């Protein structure tokens, strides 16, 4: 019994062995979850033959071919034609010529990636803004039928996207919103706003209303009090909610496939359409996926403290 130490909070301090086992489990779990990511990254720097060789190659010569193929469109040429060209101006030029091809122009990857950025961040901004206002309303005012309304808001998340896909498709065609960034922003906002309202209501409920009351007595209107006193204290919740909304909007595939095809297409439906000669160009697909991961990774790292609190909120008292 003497080996059990207790802290001031009278929580039993884990022994070094327990800590080591726990650490090992966490590391193992992290490794397992990171294998697909590592696989994607490694595939992105393999040559097309290496990428489909069986058994999979662990040791291989890395190449940027996947990235070159991702960013460009190419045409096949005769060796004589290629011989006659001036010296290659870039690494990609050189790699492409090695496959008896020349670069014909840029691919659609960056425009699609740009669409993803615009639509995901745009809808996240809207969903979080609207969600914050709605959550504040539900938290502070006596809204008639508040519980029913909240349930209704939540219920919009209860069915799979495919269930509402056809009505939305028809509606969007009618209103001219098909294949527009605005249409996608509105759609993702609508889907995310329910999550935002529920998450943020929890956070705003935790902010004592005395702060706003104090501000209102101190000479501010309710809206000014909301802006100056409630918002600064809700930043943690807002950041956590923004991450969840962004991840959803960034990764969304079903609606994007159905509603976008050209100018407003996002990256997720575009990436699988990258086709090389003689089948799927797996390194290019993997390269597209790798780059696609970067924004969400950066955003999450920047806001990770808030995210952690967001996931555990309710369980932790300030």
């Amino acid at each position, binding site marked *: 019994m003497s080996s059990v130490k207790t802290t001031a909070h009278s929580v039993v301090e884990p022994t070094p062995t327990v800590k080591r086992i726990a650490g090992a489990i966490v590391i193992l779990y992290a490794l397992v979850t990171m294998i697909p990511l590592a696989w994607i990254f490694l595939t992105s720097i393999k040559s097309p033959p290496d990428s489909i060789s069986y058994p999979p190659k662990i040791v291989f010569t890395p190449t940027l071919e996947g990235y070159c193929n991702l960013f460009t469109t190419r045409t096949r040429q005769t060796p004589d034609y290629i011989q006659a060209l001036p010296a290659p101006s870039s690494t990609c030029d050189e790699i492409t010529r090695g496959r008896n091809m020349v670069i014909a122009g840029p691919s659609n990857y960056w425009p699609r990636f740009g669409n993803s950025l615009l639509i995901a961040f745009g809808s996240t901004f809207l969903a979080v803004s609207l969600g914050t206002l709605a959550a504040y309303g539900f938290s502070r005012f006596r809204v008639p039928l508040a519980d029913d309304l909240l349930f209704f808001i939540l219920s919009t998340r209860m069915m799979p996207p495919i269930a509402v896909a056809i009505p939305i498709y028809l509606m969007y065609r009618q209103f001219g919103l098909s294949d527009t960034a605005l249409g996608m922003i509105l759609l993702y906002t609508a889907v995310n706003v329910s999550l935002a309202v529920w998450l943020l209501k929890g956070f705003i409920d935790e902010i004592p209303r*005395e702060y706003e*009351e*104090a*501000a*209102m*007595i101190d*000479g*501010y*209107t309710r809206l000014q009090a909301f802006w100056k006193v409630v918002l600064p204290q809700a930043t943690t919740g807002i950041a956590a909610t923004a991450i969840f909304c962004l991840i959803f909007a960034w990764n969304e595939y079903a609606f994007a496939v159905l509603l976008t095809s050209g100018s407003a297409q996002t990256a997720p439906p575009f990436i699988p359409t990258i086709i090389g000669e003689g089948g799927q160009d797996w390194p290019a697909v993997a390269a597209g996926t790798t780059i696609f991961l970067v924004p969400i990774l950066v955003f999450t790292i920047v806001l990770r403290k808030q995210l952690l609190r967001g996931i555990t909120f309710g369980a932790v008292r300030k």
Partner: protein
Amino acid sequence: MSEVVLHRIGKTFGDTVAVEDLSLTIRDGEFVVLLGPTGAGKTTSLRLIAGLERPDCGRVTIAGRDVGRQSPAERDVAFVFQQYSLYPHLSVYDNLAFPLRSPARRLNSDEIDRRVREVARMVRIEHKLQSRSTRLSGGEMQRVAIGRALVRRPAIYLMDEPLSSLDAKLRAELRLELKRIQKELGSTLLYVTHDQVEAMTMADRIGILSEGRLVQIGTPREIYADPANLHVAARLGQPHINLLPTDLLPGAAPPSGASAIGARTEHLEIATDAQGNAEVDWIEHLGDQNHLHIRVRGHKLVTLADPYLSIKPGDRINLTLRQPLYFGSDGERLR
């Protein structure tokens, strides 16, 4: 001048009556304390004056204006809350400056700076102006909260148990400081508490609230020595007033209709006497004084006694009443 008048105010929350037919005048420069137990309507009264709640009926006037339709910001009041008093995302300086930076006031920054520093000196927090408000101790926080009210010169200061979350020593200190500052500024102040010591030491007048009604209002001395009924008598005095049958002890001259005698320490004369009418049950030694638990024919009394009085549990003493309070069967005082 900033006289504040409540005229026949009523407020209910659902089925609960919070305040009923409350009329109260707080004169200019006066320190009024509302004393009552939890749920007596103290906080609601403050919130009604501040405009955080709207009364169901009745009228509130501040300095002669009917403020019924005005927002809290327009009413020119300052409020100190019981807790959650500081904006946690702001420094002490910014907390104190917050009311002055409001769109309703728009003071220039030199004036703001001057007043923030002046108030910081007054509540003795100058050395912590740049600290985050969450880094302060409880006493410092409450001093800043009071400072944030004092930084303005409102018609009235409203304070909702501002000292209740502090420990006894700090409470005693801040009590004195608050009274000193109020005198210095000559400000009008309505203070709510359930602590009779705070009420007795700070108030010009005390109002006793019970179940949403103002039972009695008067100077601390009047309220203590001349309570209107049993409820008021029971609010004040430590130890609690003893309620006895009219014929239990000698020295009483009950008026007709009296059904109970209220006896505090000053109404009881103790004499050591082996043949006395009472028996000492138990003695609590508080150091500077003793709590004497006495039994008289099945009735228990508690009174203060000189710590040097040489008695011990089991001793008999003689108890005589000296001008006690008389109450009718409805709890009203009989004089």
